[in-house]
């Protein structure tokens, strides 16, 4: 029997105390133990980016991140982006620019963009595009996404 490890996480501002087996990924724990299914799962190899979450502010593929490593960390998932049910400007930009079709990749894109905005409140479009190179979208051809990113970059430019 493999020993379970205690795991304290702060996810989207809520604290959790869990016990997990060491082979479980952060993705698995978020989706199954915490029922945060907004973070999506597919390739399990860091190739698609659907599972992107923030760990202490940095975007990571949660499919390649052992949950035990997140001990004590602050995690943010797509569910934590909206405040008081209101979509954040990056979410609204994706909505308004038809950057969402099937939507399965959307949480990963949004979280990757959120990571940039935490470090830099005025990112350029090029920086935002660079940050989502590891997020695959098969529906939109990225055009709507680029338009949404441009809106985010423009807002950052004008707003501050």
């Amino acid at each position, binding site marked *: 029997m493999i020993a379970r490890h205690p795991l304290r996480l702060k996810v989207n501002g809520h604290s959790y105390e869990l016990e997990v087996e060491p*082979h479980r990924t952060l993705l698995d724990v978020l989706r199954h133990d915490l029922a945060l299914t907004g973070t999506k799962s597919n390739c399990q190899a*860091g190739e698609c980016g659907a599972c992107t979450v923030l760990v202490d502010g*940095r975007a*990571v593929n949660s499919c390649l991140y052992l949950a035990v490593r997140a001990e004590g960390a602050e995690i943010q998932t797509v569910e934590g982006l909206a405040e008081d049910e209101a979509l954040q400007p990056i979410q609204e930009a994706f909505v308004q620019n038809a950057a969402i079709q099937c939507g399965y990749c959307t949480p990963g894109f949004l979280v990757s963009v959120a990571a940039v905005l935490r470090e830099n409140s005025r990112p350029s479009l090029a920086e935002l595009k660079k940050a989502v190179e*590891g997020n695959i979208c098969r529906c939109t051809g990225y055009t709507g996404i680029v338009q949404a990113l441009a809106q985010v970059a423009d807002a950052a430019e004008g707003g501050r």
Partner: protein
Amino acid sequence: MVAGLESISTTMHQLSAIGPFDYHQPESLESVIELLQEHGPAAALLAGGTALLIDMQHGELAPRHLVSLWGVPGLDRVSLNGELRIGSAATLTDLVGAIEGSVALAGLAEASLTLGSRQIQNVATVAGNICKASPGADMVPPLLCLDAMLTLTGPLGERIAPLDGFLTGPDQTALQPAEVLTEIRLPQIPDRTGTAFQKIMRRQAVDCSIISVAARVTLEDDGKTCRQARIGVAAAAPNPFRAMKAEALLKGQTLSEDLAREAGRVAQEESNPIDDVRASAEYRRLMVEELTARALVAAAERAIRT
């Protein structure tokens, strides 16, 4: 093939969930080494884990014990103070943050920023990329060009070894049992040095190298003559290597496009690539030439600018 009676037990294409394994997160390097000694080949060292977990999912590795470096203080440090020191738990993002703006290290930054996605760069470590010892390890060519030295810590203490020679075959290194790569050190870089990194992929971002080449050019005080050149090549031999004959061609010369091209041809002769799913050996050889020429020219331009 003769179609004869053949009984095969197989789990072709059957994926396995990773684990189970025991997880250890010791708080000192000594404990890391003790655990590696205790569990021997059943243990694997965990740094970023981005490559290790994939290998485990594909059943290529099935360690019973994972010994993580995350609990050991200080290993994630990168410092640039004359020499560059990269701790073995430092990620590519950590490295990029520390060397941003350094022209002499631009090639190293380029390699880091084209290795996988941002999500991978935030987790994968420089040391892990070296120790995985894959033929296409993109961090190795620029580190070879910068004469990287490795601090290896094991049961018998610490030793220093050059990166050149540390990789001994695909997935093989000169690490002794229970030995850990703890730090990568780049000696102080002379003035008038430029580095550059070039990589060919099937698509324009987030892809394994078909070929990657790093170059370093250090100029004499006249700002023209090449005092020292280094060329590192990945995905063109069992391990990334230095194209020393090509390097020799450049010493004492003025680096022209023609000379860079000639060095590329020599580097091509020094390479020994294979055909695989990503590219043919033939294309790889030709790209060693092309990328070597391009990397040398770019490095020389940067060297002039410093």
